[in-house]
């Protein structure tokens, strides 16, 4: 048993905001103070702040696309080391920041065996991954036929067999359109003769996810990302959901209007106006940070567009029966007007959005930059002076084309905990995380308060994962392994034969040899119930 005594507790999910108290841990759980306290390891935590472990809702950390990205970033004598880390180092970097649960944002079912292997190598972290479904043959076929039962079974089958946690949709239909040489620009563009549209795909899958009672609703990467004027199509997508629950990811990239010269300018205010009152939706920001980044996405149209407008090299990989993925190296430069507008727009969005339990911190790693920049981003949110100082350094377009300079709001510590822990836990349906109440998983981060906010968040004084001290005074001691979080929704098992036949017809692999169809692959599997 461990006791953190005399600690200042920040636990917004339980409405505790800075109360001084003791936190008791037994095994891997937080427990109520026991009547007899003999033999407990007492940690004098007076003066420290304790918060639930950080939860990463959207980051690309594993699998074939990361392997491709690492190859793509290779240099003469070193990797672009700060950005694209190997799996074990990714886990260590997250734990050092006090993050204890991380989700990979896009797992191809066909390649899920590789993703799972990477996640397994991330010792100490609890991990999960979102299964890419929007280009899958069995899914598209069921939507075309308007067969809701088949669709639900197809989605549940893909999730269960690939070991996924949630359903990921990436600019749905983009793979189909790309092969046809078409540009997918609106929700109602016809994707084929069957009047299949992006709107139909999103609605059908969102509805199915709801009926499957998945802990996390659809995780949606919408269309027209990054383009000037994208805020309008983004808001149309929000409205198209018709009240169905969804998580929309890296939404900074959609907060763009056009100024009178056709240049990108912030439309964060308009976006916030549309989304703030829609309680069915959660979001992550996809904040950019200055420095190297890598566009890494299954939105092939986006990567090709970035290549054409920026003339940078790019790469893509097309996968049978699934669509594809693309990569393009980026650099966000402090004196570049576009980068400056993007940086300021992301912060503006975070500062305008009223509810930190619904808009979460992310850099869409590696798309917006490294996740290790979170402490710096937090410092810009909590410290108006630091923000203004940074704003003065970046290209003036950040002041001219966004309204960041006019915003006074400063995040409180509680709000930071909401956006990095309590909020994501709730959005992901993880009931035993994101809070410090009795029965919660003992994932805890402690900070020594200091005026240097960035340093405080970058260097927790103590991190506890599942009841084990994994970081103390800067020294990392990894636990043996983390859990693999997944779901097992109900589905019609008789349909598996049909799905396999569809795969057999459309791919070169015998379904009996699709690694992801094999059970028993996941060690330390933790199934989160569908309620």
């Amino acid at each position: 048993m461990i006791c953190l005594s005399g600690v200042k507790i920040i636990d917004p999910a339980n409405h505790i905001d800075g109360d001084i108290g003791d936190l008791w841990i037994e095994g891997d759980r937080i427990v109520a103070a026991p009547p007899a306290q003999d033999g407990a390891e007492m940690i004098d935590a007076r003066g420290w702040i304790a918060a639930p472990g950080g939860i990463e809702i959207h980051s690309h950390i594993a699998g074939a696309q990361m392997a491709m990205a690492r190859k793509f970033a290779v240099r003469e004598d070193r990797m672009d080391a700060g950005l694209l880390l190997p799996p074990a180092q990714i886990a260590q970097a997250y734990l050092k920041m006090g993050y204890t649960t991380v989700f990979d944002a896009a797992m191809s079912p066909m390649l899920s065996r590789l993703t799972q292997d990477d996640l397994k190598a991330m010792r100490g972290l609890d991990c999960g991954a979102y299964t890419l479904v929007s280009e899958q043959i069995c899914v598209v076929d069921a939507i075309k036929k308007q067969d809701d039962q088949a669709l639900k079974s197809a989605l549940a089958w893909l999730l269960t067999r690939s070991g996924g946690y949630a359903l990921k949709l990436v600019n749905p239909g983009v793979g189909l359109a790309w092969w046809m040489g078409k540009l997918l620009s609106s929700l109602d563009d016809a994707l084929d003769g069957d009047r299949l549209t992006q709107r139909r795909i999103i609605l059908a899958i969102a509805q199915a996810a709801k009926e499957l009672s998945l802990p996390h609703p659809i995780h949606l990467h919408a269309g027209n990302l990054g383009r000037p004027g994208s805020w309008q199509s983004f808001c149309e997508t929000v409205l198209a959901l018709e009240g169905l629950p969804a998580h929309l990811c890296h939404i900074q990239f959609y907060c763009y209007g056009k100024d009178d010269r056709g240049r990108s300018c912030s439309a964060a205010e308009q976006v916030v106006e549309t989304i703030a009152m829609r309680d069915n939706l959660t979001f992550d920001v996809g904040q950019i940070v200055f420095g190297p980044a890598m566009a890494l996405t299954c939105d092939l149209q986006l990567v090709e567009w970035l290549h054409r407008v920026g003339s940078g090299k790019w790469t893509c990989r097309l996968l049978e029966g699934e669509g594809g993925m693309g990569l393009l190296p980026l650099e966000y430069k402090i004196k570049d007007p576009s980068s400056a507008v993007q940086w300021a727009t992301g912060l503006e969005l975070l500062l305008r959005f009223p509810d930190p339990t619904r808009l979460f911190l992310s850099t869409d790693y590696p798309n917006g930059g490294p996740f290790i920049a979170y402490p710096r981003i937090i410092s810009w949110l909590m410290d108006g002076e630091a923000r203004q100082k940074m704003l003065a350094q970046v290209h003036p377009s950040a002041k001219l084309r966004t309204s960041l300079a006019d915003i006074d709001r400063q995040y409180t510590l509680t709000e930071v905990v909401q956006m990095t822990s309590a909020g994501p836990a709730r959005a992901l349906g993880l009931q035993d995380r994101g809070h410090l109440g009795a029965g919660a998983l003992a994932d805890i981060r402690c900070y020594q308060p200091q005026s240097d906010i960035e340093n405080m968040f970058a260097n927790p004084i103590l991190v506890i994962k599942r009841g084990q001290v994994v970081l103390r005074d800067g020294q990392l001691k990894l636990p043996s392994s983390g859990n693999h979080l997944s779901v097992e929704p109900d589905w019609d098992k008789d349909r598996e034969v049909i799905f396999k036949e569809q795969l057999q017809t459309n791919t070169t692999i015998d379904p009996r040899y699709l690694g992801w169809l094999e059970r028993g692959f996941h060690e330390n599997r933790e199934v989160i119930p569908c309620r």
Partner: protein
Amino acid sequence: MSEHCLKSVACAFCSCHCTDIDIVIQDGKVTRIYPPCPVAEKGFRVETDDPPSHGSGGAYASNAACIEEIYRRLRAARLPLIWIGSGISYENQRSAVKLAKTLCACVDTPASKNAFGITRAYAESGMHWLSLGGLQEKVDTLVFWGCDLARKYPRFWERFVKNGRVQRLVNVNSLLPAADNEVVLNLPINPQLCLEILTQLRLMNKNQAVAASPLLHALFTAIHASRYGCFIFDPTQKACHPVTLRQAFQLIQEMNDTREERWFGLLLERGVNATGASTALLLETGYPGAVRFVENSARFSSLEWSAEYLIDNEETDLVVQVGQVDSQIQDKLIGKIEQNPQKMGYIVLDSNPPVSAQAAWLPVKPFGLNSGGTALRMDGLPIPIRPVFDSPGWELTEALERLAGEVSL
């Protein structure tokens, strides 16, 4: 004599990783396979030799004694080299990298000789890859560029080309199966001129005047008559030197930028690496080859820590070979060891006995025959390989885990 047939077995022995092989087993040996394939026959050891004996590693009384001896040598080593080869599962390749990390050793794979050059070409130019299903389903023009399909990938043609949508085939210095001579254009180019040919194609693609041969014009015309096209390269061949590949990747990028058709590439990159060791190394360390671990962190130098360099310059004092490795470098190693066995130790964790009597050999079950795991197909898709039949003896996984456990104590 008991005989039985196993249907749809996955083959681990070339990077096509066919999953439609039927094999006949008689008295614990594979006696026939169908469809016939020389690579698979060799791998499944069809009526050739006995399965390796297990339970007694070389001169050692038991595998446990062998492990003890290996551990003793590892503990005494100043700079060990973990040399990861093919013929083992992807999981075991990753475990071998982890062992290197625990030992603060150097680690290399036979594929890394090419991998760095290719990876650099890819990093400098970008590339459009296509999986084999996409090739079969979409591609109407295929350009085989220096590929030895007939000898190294005997069933590639039958599985992915013959039943596909290909209308035009261009053969640039490739050995294709003679039976299906549907090639519309044969270009027997001197491999040393491949770079020049690609440069000319790039210029032609930019509508610049080039004094090219009629054959080159015919190639250009064939390429641009397509909707979807794919180049297939075999980087172990001279026609696919990394510098040439870089030019080819750029050509593909430029064709996609300037024309309506879409072009892709596919590397038969795992000639000496049928299960994907370079990928395993890259995933574990972030580098495509030749790494040295220093205090948990991987340092990369494609030359300084390569197996060949370390052995040539006697900078390693212990080589741990896991799986099958490049025979040329292996010969060098054996030469060194025979000269001075005290200077460089040699440990082999493989199903095949080592050529050198100086090696400590831990025989493990052969992958794809008595042992399973994941293999990466040439397009990167993971294929689960299952053991064809069970046999006594050690799994490589077990040996690596045991060693890692001993070393970390």
